[in-house]
């Protein structure tokens, strides 16, 4: 599209300005025809993040809904915006649901008098029984002499001053050198 510009000589300065503007327009619209072949534009320093160099200048006809830019690919993580004050922290830490509940299921053991929970064995009595069991097991180990020597017969534990009855005919007898404890009932 060629436009002839006829300007009279008295408006010399205006003509010069108009010529320069026209030249720039031509070079911008048809860079390969007019003007110097400029090297392709591009950012000199590749930086990630919001666009420091406007990239729309290269492709003027590029639509906004084109390929996804760098901004859509970033996943923003949740982070606290403000510091939680000590008052707010205290409200959360001292809320009644966070406090320790008072236990209402504690009783006294009728055997030894120590405290016990209602649905759990008394700790002291259990420890007593455990200790006696350990000593009986030591006696059994001494009698057997080694592992895998358990006899096919039953075992009976007899304390001081006790004799084996007719019921303990074929059974293995383990002797303990102490008085029979009150909780270990003899058959």
């Amino acid at each position, binding site marked *: 599209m060629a436009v002839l510009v006829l300007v009279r000589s008295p408006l010399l300065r205006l003509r010069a300005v108009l010529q320069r503007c026209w030249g720039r327009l031509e070079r911008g619209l048809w860079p390969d025809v007019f003007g110097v072949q400029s090297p392709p534009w591009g950012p000199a320093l590749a930086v990630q993040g919001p666009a420091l160099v406007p990239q729309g200048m290269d492709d003027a006809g590029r639509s906004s809904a084109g390929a996804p830019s760098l901004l859509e690919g970033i996943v923003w993580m949740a982070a606290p915006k403000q510091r939680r004050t000590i008052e707010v922290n205290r409200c959360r830490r*001292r809320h009644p649901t*966070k*406090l*320790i509940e*008072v*236990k209402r299921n*504690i009783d006294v053991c009728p055997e030894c008098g120590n*405290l016990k*929970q209602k649905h759990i064995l008394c700790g002291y009595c259990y420890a007593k029984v455990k200790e006696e069991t350990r000593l009986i097991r030591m006696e059994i180990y001494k009698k057997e002499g080694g592992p895998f020597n358990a006899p096919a017969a039953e075992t009976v534990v007899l304390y001081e001053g006790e004799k084996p009855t007719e019921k303990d005919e074929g059974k293995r007898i383990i002797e303990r050198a102490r008085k029979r404890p009150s909780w270990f009932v003899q058959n």
Partner: protein
Amino acid sequence: SGAACARGLLSWARPERWLAAGGLFPLSCIHTSTSLQKIGRWEKKNRIVYPPQLPGEPRRPAEIYHCRREIKYSKDKMWYLAKLIKGMSIDQALAQLEFSDKKGAKVIKEVLLEAQEMAVRNHNVEFKSNLHIAESQTGRGRYVKRVRCHGKGMFGMMRISRCHYFVKLVEGPPPPPEPPKTGFEQAKEYVQQLRSRTLVHTL
């Protein structure tokens, strides 16, 4: 001048200070007790001595202060246990602590038993069950920074936290718990507050 010189030389030796107030045995300038470690404020509270009570006054209940320093536990976690036993009788507190699963429960139980024994031995408490816990508090001990190794040669700084535990036993049954404030009470207080407003900084 000789006499003055001698007086000046011997001015540091004052014979009246060589003997204690009793006047029998000489004072030793060596520290026999561990006075280099600072005695904390809570321990000093046991040393106050009140003047003898007048015949008409009600009997002042015995107060026993005890604490344990530098327990290897967090002060925030210990606070929950301290809050649990505040205001309970000593037997109830020992029962609750015995069946608590927390690490600090064992430590606090030991402290309470020690304090009970101290009360009976030194502070003239007649019945060891007649004590209740008036105050139980936790404090921050000395923190130490250490390196915590992560994978791939990374490391972070971790804090080893310690705490103190303070308890005050008072003779007598525990005070009854305060009834919760009703809405009516709160409303009455609010109205009272509004009524008691005056003009400030005026003639």
